[in-house]
């Protein structure tokens, strides 16, 4: 069954605004999957074709794998977690936020509720399509809008520190999943959101998240994508950052046959800050695309971006990053760095760092480097008796550890380091 056919069969059964879904289905019908339609692909999808996705048929069915086993493989933290199994919220596997709302205590028995003034809701119960996304411009957002069934809506009230919450997706069967999340931080609120995804089989996770960070609020958004190596993972995030607020994100992509992480961050208020850092570790025939658009709309905004790719096997890494500075956004400070390390003669990197600037009093720059490990550095280590393979491994680890420095929370960084370590072991095998 194609996505559109499935939409037809689900007509009337899906939660939320059906007119919006109908419009999205029209948009998806006319756009099609990027790279799978005739003609030249759009510029935004220049380096990533979804032809292989279009050729794969998904069906929802009985779970084929144990969700617990998959969950156990993730470097989870000892904090509340909201778990979705095959796109549906799992009360059983979630560890809820306690009623005191400080985010540190937990209770496995509590139902999904809204403790204190923190508001949590399932998309299935209270569908919220948000206001920032553009189904008419982004075919994958259109697809999600058309088929979204569940997801989470988190609303952190003003001046409330919600600590750390994990949002986890587990796939156990060969289905296509379209989670829809909304995260809202009111003025002065604080949250560390850790998103992790993993699974078994040939599935397709197509997440859309909308994030609002109000004046002075601070959201740290950490993502670990460790999907099955036969899976498709596409994630589109829209974040709006208000005055003096911070959206600090870090994405680690390790798994999936084909992965695309797309982030649109808009600095809408003065003195807003956005960090969009990412690391992609690829091997075999993996393809991972990190695409970002940082929109500076207001004066005195700061954006920082460091994206690193480590590519072995026949893998292909893609980075597309654009900094847009509107006329009004004077005194913007934007920086973007993209580095790729090629470990194999068959790996490929495509990088497109873009600046689009309409204000004159700005400081914007980007840099990109592509290459293999520095022969001089290898020589240095070898001259001190370190075997070649080990010397290389030391240098790659150094390259990665530098990237992980962007994650300041030690527990979180430790968790990501464990994920990197598991990639390393897998790559050696």
């Amino acid at each position, binding site marked *: 069954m194609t996505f559109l056919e499935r939409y037809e069969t689900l007509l009337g059964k899906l939660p939320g605004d059906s007119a919006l879904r109908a419009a999205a289905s029209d948009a998806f019908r006319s756009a099609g999957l990027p790279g799978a339609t005739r003609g030249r692909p759009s510029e935004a999808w220049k380096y990533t074709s979804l032809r292989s996705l279009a050729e794969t048929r998904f069906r929802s069915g009985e779970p084929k794998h144990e969700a617990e086993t998959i969950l156990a493989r993730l470097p989870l933290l000892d904090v509340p977690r909201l778990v979705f199994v095959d796109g549906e919220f799992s009360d059983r596997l979630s560890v809820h936020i306690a009623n005191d709302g400080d985010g540190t205590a937990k209770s496995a028995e509590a139902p999904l509720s809204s403790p204190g003034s923190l508001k949590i809701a399932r998309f299935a119960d209270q569908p919220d399509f948000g206001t920032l996304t553009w189904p008419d411009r982004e075919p994958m957002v259109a697809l999600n809008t058309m088929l979204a069934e569940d997801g989470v809506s988190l609303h952190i009230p003003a001046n409330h520190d919600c600590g750390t919450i994990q949002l986890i997706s587990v796939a156990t069967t060969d289905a296509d999943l379209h989670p829809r999340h909304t995260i809202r931080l009111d003025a002065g609120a604080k949250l560390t959101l850790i998103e992790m995804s993993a699974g078994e089989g040939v599935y397709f996770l197509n997440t859309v998240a909308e994030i609002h960070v109000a004046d002075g609020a601070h959201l740290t958004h950490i993502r670990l994508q460790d999907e099955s190596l036969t899976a498709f993972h596409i994630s589109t995030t829209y974040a709006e950052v208000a005055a003096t607020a911070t959206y600090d994100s870090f994405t680690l992509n390790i798994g999936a046959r084909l992965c695309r992480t797309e982030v649109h961050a808009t600095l809408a208020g003065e003195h807003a800050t956005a960090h969009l850092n990412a690391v992609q570790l690829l091997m075999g025939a993996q393809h991972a695309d990190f695409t970002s658009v940082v929109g500076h709309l207001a004066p005195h905004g700061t954006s920082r971006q460091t994206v690193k790719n480590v590519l072995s096997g026949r893998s292909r890494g893609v980075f597309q990053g654009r900094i847009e500075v509107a006329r009004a956004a004077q005194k913007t400070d934007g920086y973007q760095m993209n580095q790729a390390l090629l470990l194999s003669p068959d790996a490929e990197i495509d*990088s497109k760092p*873009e600046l689009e*600037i309409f204000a004159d009093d700005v400081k914007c720059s980007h*840099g*990109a480097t592509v290459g293999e490990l520095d022969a001089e550095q290898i020589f240095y280590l070898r001259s001190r008796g370190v075997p070649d393979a080990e010397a290389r491994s030391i240098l790659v680890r150094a390259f990665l550890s530098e990237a992980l420095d962007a994650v300041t929370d030690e527990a979180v960084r430790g968790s990501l380091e464990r994920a990197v370590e598991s990639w390393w072991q897998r790559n050696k095998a």
Partner: protein
Amino acid sequence: MAVETETLETVQALTQSGYKWGFETNVEMEFAPKGLNEDIIRLISARKQEPAWMLDWRLKAFAAWQKMEEPQWARVEHPPIDYQDLHYYAAPKKKAGPKSLDEVDPELLAMYEKLGIPLKERAILAGVDPDAAEGGSRQIAVDAVFDSVSVATTFKETLSKAGVIFCPISEAIREYPDLVKQYLGTVVPVGDNFFAALNSAVFTDGSFVYIPKGVRCPMELSTYFRINARNTGQFERTLIIAEEGSYVSYLEGCTAPQRDENQLHAAVVELVTMDDAQIKYSTVQNWYPGDEHGKGGIYNFVTKRGACRGARSKISWTQVETGSAITWKYPSCVLLGEDSVGEFYSVAVTNNHQQADTGTKMIHVGRGSRSTIVSKGISAGHSNNTYRGLVRMAPTAKNARNFTQCDSLLIGDRCGAHTVPYIESRNLTAKVEHEATTSKIAEDQLFYCRQRGLSEEDAVGLIVNGFCKDVLKELPMEFAVEAQKLLAVSLEGSVG
């Protein structure tokens, strides 16, 4: 004379207003009817007395063009172009024989004077014996293109002694058909892109240069392009071949008369270098940019590409782009030869409502190939200036290197500066480094200059010249001087 010392003159030039080179020469024109079809192409080919293979080649290009659509990806906006509303052939009625300068219309010589062609060259055009010219000074050969027909070619004799062929391409098609056939369209194929296909179908003239094995071209070759008649699109075609171990420096400069109707210019330049050969191609582009309200100006849609076919061969592009309402131009290098070298040095200035989308492509195929890209974009007024570039490392490009530096300078808050680099690497031993910055003229720099008595406009001229120094120093001297003045004139009225 160092380039920097020209600043004083630059400052003086700032006081002039308007487009200094805007005038129209009244030479009677002969037009082909408006419109584009096979008959027009047959007419062009017949007028040029071309062999049958050339006509077939043009028709093939025309067939390809008809199937193509105008590219939309560049960051430029313009009203749709009616390709059927243009003249594709215009020739001065008084047919000037390229063999004798006496036949040159005196109006043309007056035009060169207004263009500010160096005295030396004017003397050449006036028929002064080149060997009698002041000893030791560099000689320049000029192949002047007046609209579509080359009217005068100088220095032919000196060049032919060295074995160098430098002539209008229409003549080359007749005189050296085998050479032209062997190379024409091999770097930019007829169906390469919309504008290249159009050019291939209707090009009327351009330059042909052939440097034989081991020859260092005894002088710099120069062509002044000029659009003259109303509604005649200009479709120049240039082909330069540098055989093994040879060297040539080629200068191209253009100014255009002031007028209101937009004019289309779609040139194609092809360069080929064999083992150890070197081509240095320099451009100062100063087509009419339109008035301060964005009315008029030239549409400059150019395809320039060089193929470094031989080992250790080198192609270097240097351009100073100050003119045209719209510039769409990506001088590129296909680095096929082992250890071949590609360079691109560019200054692009946009003011008022100008739009420039320019950059380069460095396609690395050969082992050890190297490329350098230095691009300086300056936007003022309501203009938009985009650097768009590609660096591609093919799997065969072992140990290839690229370094790219793109800097943008914004003057005023109504303009835009954009950087769109594409980096594609499929070889782990290849190294690519890219840096880009965007900034404005720093207050402290301005203050420093003002404090020493320079006016704000002069200070800006000085700072901009400093910003562009890395590129200007790559230009041959004659051009460097002209380029500095152009920069300042182009930015006139952008401050204060």
